[in-house]
């Protein structure tokens, strides 16, 4: 038995994009004179980027297979339109609206998945078709008009907050619920790290130096407290944040810890080898695209709820934001590599750029140029660093 303690340094590459996210945020904080640090703005960042994060999660699975889904923007619009029609024209319960929206997303996803997995049509072509068909259907259903306003209980999904317990604090109010969540999150984080170290020791795996672990924890705790403190100073926890956190946790777990999740990586890395390892790659393809349909529907519900209306133009170009998030987050264009957290960080980098540039007073035209450059730059750095290693 080898009892020698193995210690290795933290792999900084893993945190590169995360550090870039913090850097961009700090730069804009300086440029805007701290405007983007305000509680209202932090809240906006969450609410404005909720649907992009949801789409990026689903898109990552598509990107892992080495493909993309171009249809998500249209599916967002289509499912949102269906929900709007049920709520406004038929005056039905919001749960019916949500259910129908999800079912439509599921149906579109299965439709695309069927063509891709079982008929072998390239995903680019199939999803280009769903993109066109979905948009056309949306315009037809809405007769090219906006459907609204939507009822309050539905709007809560996209614009509401969890119950709050406010106390007076430093010339304003402070929501205790946020603070409690922050405390729980901090304790959970520390416990998780301790458990991970204990497991590593038990199996005699390499551990990281203590000071590095402490520093990592300290940085994460500062971010958690900054974030929740700001939310506590505003209206408390947005409901969208709950949806996001649940989805991020669920999909991070699926992609890293489940057999089905790892099969997507195996498929993206080498489809033939995956087949010969007992993986039904057709099935994987089918479910990845079906899943994308469902998540597009969730995003559709969140978006219409936030806008309090269904519009035929909704979700235009969202597929590109989601794809860009994955690539900025370090996913390989050829497939087989990438993480959910990376995609989420990618989505927030885009969100912070948008937000910061708006606050600074740059027009959306300039914003597009900058976002394009950031996407290109991030992928270039990623590719170059891999090339050096190989």
């Amino acid at each position, binding site marked *: 038995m080898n009892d020698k303690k193995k210690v290795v340094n933290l792999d900084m590459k893993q945190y590169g994009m995360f550090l870039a996210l913090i850097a961009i945020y700090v730069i804009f904080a300086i440029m805007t004179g701290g405007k983007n640090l305000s509680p209202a703005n932090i809240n906006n960042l969450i609410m404005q980027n909720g649907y992009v994060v949801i789409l990026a999660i689903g898109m990552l699975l598509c990107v892992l297979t080495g493909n993309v889904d171009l249809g998500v923007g249209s599916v967002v619009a289509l499912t949102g339109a269906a929900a709007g029609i049920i709520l406004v024209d038929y005056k039905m319960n919001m749960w019916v609206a949500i259910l129908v929206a999800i079912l439509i997303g599921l149906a579109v996803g299965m439709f695309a998945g069927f063509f891709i997995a079982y008929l072998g049509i390239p995903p680019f072509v199939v999803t280009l078709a769903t993109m066109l068909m979905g948009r056309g259907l949306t315009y037809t259903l809405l007769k090219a008009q906006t459907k609204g306003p939507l009822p309050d209980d539905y709007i809560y999904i996209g614009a509401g907050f969890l119950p709050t317990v406010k106390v007076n604090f430093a010339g304003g109010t402070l929501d205790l619920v946020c603070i409690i969540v922050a405390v729980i999150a901090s304790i959970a984080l520390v416990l998780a790290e301790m458990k991970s170290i204990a497991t590593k020791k038990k199996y005699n795996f*390499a551990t990281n130096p203590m000071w590095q672990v402490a520093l990592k924890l300290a940085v994460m705790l500062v971010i958690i407290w900054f974030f929740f403190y700001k939310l506590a100073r505003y209206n408390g926890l947005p409901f969208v944040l709950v949806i996001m956190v649940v989805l991020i946790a669920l999909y991070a777990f699926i992609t890293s810890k489940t*057999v089905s999740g790892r099969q997507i990586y*195996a498929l993206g890395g*080498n489809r033939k080898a995956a087949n010969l*390892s*007992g993986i039904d790659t057709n099935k994987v393809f089918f479910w990845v695209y079906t899943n994308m349909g469902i998540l597009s529907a969730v995003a559709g519900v969140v978006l219409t709820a936030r806008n309090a209306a269904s519009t035929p133009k909704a979700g235009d170009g969202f597929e590109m934001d989601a794809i860009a998030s994955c690539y900025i987050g370090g996913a390989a264009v050829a497939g*087989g590599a990438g993480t959910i957290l990376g995609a989420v960080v990618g989505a927030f980098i885009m969100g912070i750029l948008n937000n910061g540039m708006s606050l600074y007073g740059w027009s959306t035209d300039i914003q597009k140029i900058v976002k394009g450059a950031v996407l290109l730059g991030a992928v270039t750095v990623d590719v170059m660093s891999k090339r050096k290693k190989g």
Partner: protein
Amino acid sequence: MSDYILEMNHIIKEFSGVRALDDVNLKVKRGEIHALCGENGAGKSTLMNVLSGVYPFGTYSGDVVYKGETCKFHNLRDSEAKGIVIIHQELALSPLLSIAENVFIGNEQLSAKGVIDWTKTRQRAQEMLARVGLEHEDVNVPVNSLGVGKQQLIEIAKAMAKKVELLILDEPTAALNDEESKKLLDIMLELKKQGITCIIISHKLNEIEYVSDAVTIIRDGKTIETLVKGVDDYTEDRVIKGMVGREMTNRYPVREGVTIGDTIFEVKDWNVYHPDDENRQVLKDINISVKAGEVVGLAGLMGAGRTEFAMSVFGHSYGQKISGTVKINGQEVHMHNVRDAINSKLAYVSEDRKVYGLNLIGEIKENMTIAARPKFFSKHGVINSNDEIVAAEEYKKRINVKANSIEQVVGSLSGGNQQKVVLAKWMLTQPDVLILDEPTRGIDVGAKYEIYCVINDLAKAGKAVIVISSEMPEIIGTCDRTYVLNEGRIAGELSKDELTQEQIMQCIMAHNRKDDGNE
């Protein structure tokens, strides 16, 4: 003028501080076939990349003197302009383009105005094909309609079109069977008569002995020695001694302490049709059986149907209209997909690990556990990562995968270590029957030995092992018994005592004659 066409003197090449080449010297005489030998990672390919300008002048130290002048190549084009052409192991053909177009790709036959002259292209392509013995091929068909052996010859034709004087072949026969290899080597001898100098890199020492006039041996980035045919001892064993730095008296480890048990794998009346053509029968009435602890070979020429047989048995991964029965441990099993096969305790280590065996961008651990995961490393679909790490560490140690950690990306490993990862992947599924398809293709002598040791261990553990190999000495060295396949049928069965290269070939020839008689 010296009689050396090429002199590489004191070549030193470093990669971020690591010396890949450390004072290497290579002298090649005009008009000879010069072999370059060494284990994987010894520096052969690096040396050839220096020569061909892939590593430009200035990134290495030392002189490259070609035809009496010092070369300062900055890229492949520079070296090709001088008549140095390198053909890599991985073919550089564009599969859907025609033979003619491939022969002149990057070297287009142009009319006066810079437009491609197709008539000239076809005519000249035909001439080039004739020089490599392919005069009967239609130059208008896409390259992928030819077999690998012929594609390799197309590569040579492509080199001829560039007015090659020094042709470098990197493992040209790695993907070829004995017959195709022989043909390629004979073409090389033919080129030699036409005055072309060749450098050949190969792991197949019998070929080197057959074709080359001199051999330079490289070990750990250093030149060890150069042997000349007719002057020095020029046998395989002598070359191996130079490569590994010690005598390797036995290239196949002795299998001891194996008790051969009952028949645990049995295939009866196996018939398979081609996946794209339901009227073309690929395998006909195959019957084989393997006992516990037995290593059985499947010999035959390329296209005999060995891989097709293995894959069709392995969860119907090849072919259609499959009929016949498979028994494992006395039980008849029905395997309709790979999952079924794994659950039936059958494992198939595919040929061509890069295409069919590995996720090259994945970690060692991930590659090792992917097939065994649903059964052994997960509960209700959730992975037990700790068990996976323990298992991967254990196998890394057990079969000696040389890597920094089990988190290393598989694509960065040498061929031999990649092959060990594929083996580990299938051993982890805890099979009773293993089919190893070309288990040592393209890997060096030392790693081969280690793989043979693994095969012995498997036999000792009472597994039934089937080895498919195009290298007859390997079949002879490792197998207790061998089936010879020819054109989709069993041409014969040879016991260990009868097993010689001649016997295998005779078996095939006799079967061919019988076939002709029937028709």
